């Protein structure tokens, strides 16, 4: 009899719950009725709320709303930094010294005025903490001659500094508050700074929002900063909800979220006819590329010019765009089309089967080449596996046998970073919106070395990359980056493939939800 009563009780509870929830559908599917709450779906790559340690996309989205930077970008723009905490700046002729004049009305969320000392502390902390974003301060030093002036000095001419300081990693923190909670900008900050735990629960910024709850796995909530020095935040509360692209598709349709940030081109047909949703499309600054290892010790085949030519001319770039989805673009060089210094669309490599076959004939009888890529990772709905299969088919058409070698990203990264892959299919997300970020592809540089490419083989390219790094005059700089990329394409160690489309899907009544090539989405512009 006990079982029977228990069963009846459970049944009654479930029936009651079904009745209750069934009667109140609008109450259970999210706060879309409340205009003061915005729910944003994002597949989290969130590690920390400490700006100095944060370097991931989600951290950038969140950080942009909580921590101000010296300069930033306007809505949807990724080319011209505009004033934020710094109202203006000057640069010396050699582009080695930047002087920033700070606004005098900026206050942190606790009401403390923001001064140049906070900027120096924040930047030095990033430099010494040895985190993912510490390289941003490489070769830079920062000083404060007075309360409202900050000087950034570079060891070498560096015109990328205005773009670099828009990075959320360089968000300005309340130095006194952070120091009081374990923070330090000392040279040994990597071992002595203990402020992360504090910053994961409390805002120390001057942005329009402050942290309410921070969770790297479920959702992170920010609320309007009552002490914000600028135009007040448009929403009382923004919830960043961790959801896969598949969940975002369901959630945006069911009204659980207001904005979906990770929907791929293949998912959009499901919502295109939905009258309640608006689809904003842009082009992502992420580039997919293929490389052929230039190190003869790794492969005597891929390190030859004939192999690189066979790949470069054998790829069906238009066909690859079909895999990448509607709205994607072939990328002409390593610098994405949305940034200064990019090649023109007319510069793209075009498939030439005759040239490719001639190069294959030159190679003679060779064993199949292994193409490695991450199998458990996709961006904008694009699976590396699908792209790799198309590459394999393209190259087979011109007589090259490719063996696919997928592995989980945690293991694939090891061989990629170790420079041991014969061929690799990878992507590059910008660290900051400036072509200087793409000098990593040059011989002897980080990505170049992953492709086994050392400077000895192409000293001309090394010289060009060095010139590009220190060029200061805009037109000259643009021309050098153009030459650099054309020369890279000519050699063909890297075959730039495409930039995916970037899509923001939002409720029709939400204003300003546009894709940002710098932040993914700038939450501070939404609703304005």
């Amino acid at each position, binding site marked *: 009899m006990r079982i029977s009563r228990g069963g009846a009780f459970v049944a009654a509870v479930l029936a009651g719950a079904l009745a209750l929830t069934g009667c109140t559908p609008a*109450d*259970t*599917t999210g706060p879309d009725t409340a205009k003061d709450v915005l729910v944003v779906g994002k597949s989290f790559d969130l590690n920390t709320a400490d700006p100095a340690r944060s370097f991931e996309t989600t951290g950038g989205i969140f950080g942009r709303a909580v921590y101000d930077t010296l300069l930033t970008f306007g809505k949807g723009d990724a080319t011209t930094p505009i004033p934020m905490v710094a109202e203006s700046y000057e640069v010396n002729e050699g582009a080695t010294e930047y002087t920033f004049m700070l606004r005098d009305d900026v206050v942190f969320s606790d009401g403390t005025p923001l001064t140049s000392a906070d900027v120096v502390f924040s930047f030095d902390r990033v430099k010494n903490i040895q985190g993912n974003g510490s*390289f941003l301060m490489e070769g830079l030093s920062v000083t404060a001659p007075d309360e409202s002036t900050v000087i950034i000095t570079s060891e070498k001419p560096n015109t990328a500094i205005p773009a670099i300081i828009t990075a959320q990693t360089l968000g300005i923190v309340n130095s006194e508050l952070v120091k009081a909670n374990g923070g330090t900008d000392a040279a040994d900050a990597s071992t002595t700074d203990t402020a992360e735990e504090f910053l994961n629960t409390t805002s120390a910024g001057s942005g329009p929002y402050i942290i309410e709850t921070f969770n790297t*796995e*479920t959702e992170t909530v920010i609320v309007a900063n009552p002490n914000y020095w600028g135009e007040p935040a448009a929403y009382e*509360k923004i919830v960043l909800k961790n*959801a896969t692209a598949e969940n975002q598709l369901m959630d945006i349709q069911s009204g659980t979220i207001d904005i979906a940030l990770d929907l791929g081109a293949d998912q959009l047909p499901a919502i295109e006819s939905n009258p309640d949703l608006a689809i904003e499309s842009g082009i992502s600054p992420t580039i997919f590329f293929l490389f052929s290892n230039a190190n003869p010790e790794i492969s005597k085949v891929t390190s030859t010019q004939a192999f690189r030519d066979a790949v470069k001319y054998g790829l069906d770039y238009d066909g690859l765009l079909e895999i990448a989805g509607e709205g994607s673009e072939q990328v002409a060089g390593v610098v994405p089309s949305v940034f200064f210094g990019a090649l023109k669309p007319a510069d793209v490599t075009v498939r030439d089967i005759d040239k490719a076959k001639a190069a294959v004939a030159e190679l003679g009888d060779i064993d199949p080449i292994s193409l490695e890529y991450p199998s458990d990772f996709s961006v904008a709905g694009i699976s590396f596996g699908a792209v790799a299969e198309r590459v394999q088919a393209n190259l087979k058409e011109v007589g090259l046998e490719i063996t696919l070698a997928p592995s989980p990203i945690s293991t694939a990264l*090891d061989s990629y970073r170790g420079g041991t892959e014969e061929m690799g299919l990878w992507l590059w997300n910008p660290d900051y919106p400036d072509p200087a970020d793409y000098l990593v592809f040059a011989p002897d540089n*980080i990505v170049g070395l992953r492709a086994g490419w050392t400077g000895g083989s192409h000293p001309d390219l090394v010289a060009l990359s060095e010139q590009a790094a220190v060029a200061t005059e805009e037109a000259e700089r643009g021309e050098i980056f153009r030459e650099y990329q054309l020369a890279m394409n000519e050699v063909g160690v890297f075959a730039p493939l495409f930039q995916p489309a970037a899509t923001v899907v939002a409720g029709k009544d939400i204003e300003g939800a546009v894709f940002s090539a710098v932040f993914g989405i700038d939450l501070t512009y939404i609703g304005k």
Partner: protein
Amino acid sequence: MLFRFILSRLGSAAILSVGIILVSFILTALLPGDAATSRLGERAAADPEIVAAVRARYGLDQPLYMQFFIYLGNLLRGDLGTSIRTQNPVLSDLAQFGPASAELAIAATLIAIVVGVGFGIVASLRANGIIDQVLRVVSLGGVSIPIFWLALIAVYLFSTVNRIFPSSGRLNPGETPPPQVTGMYTFDSLVAGNWPLFISALSHLILPALVLSAPMIGLLLRFTRSSMLEVLGNEYVRAAEAKGLPRHTVVLRHVLRGALVPVITVLGTAFASLLAGTVLVEQIFGWPGIGAYAFRSASNLDLPAIVGVTLFVALVYITVNLIVDFLYGVIDPRIRRA
């Protein structure tokens, strides 16, 4: 007797746990890949100083056997280490995600027991009739329909087309979880007397729990039916009926009690498979449970988290088996005496 039984079970559980930790360590170490650099960005991973700092921070600069012994030493103090990925103590991660999965699994099990055993009894009492035939199809469907497909259909029907249930999560976005008692939001919100939050938690729980319970319902239905039919044929049942006892008394007091022993055995096994199904259901319903945590930890070679989850799941299995053993004794006194 009972004390010795518990002691021996706990002893074997401890030995088993050490073995599980050892196997987890060895398997993770055998995988190609570098846990220290897998979470670093491209530039940081190319900087030997930063990589060395990360290795030192997580003890990855020690030989594997040292890491193993350090882990065991910390474990004795209740420290499961710090997750490389979330940077939280693994114990606090498990305390966050374990109850989420437990809530889902318990709800699914309760639904399965009520529906599966209930319909199993009905099917046995109407053996070979039209109801039995219908329930046979239902049972077959429950066992054979892929759970991910069922989940997608459920979301489409009940969340997308008809906004009856939320499509993902444990609470509405932005809602503050109830003060933690068990970590199971439905229970904790009731304890806190927060009815709106209880409704929210329950509405999020129902759909994934129903989907997750489907295979278990099918299994329990079949086993209850066949077990009931076996017991119904016994002489003592006919004797009870001959004595003029009401039908429901005979079924519930005499037949069901005897029929439940094999059903409980199946329940234990089904609970194990239910845990495996939880991973898929959590993924589809965006349920932040131990399955999703385990998947992300494994993808990032997060050794402390991987070992922590393995240990947690093993302890769940051991506990469930222990409960099943005790239930045998409660239902069938002959087992207890033996």
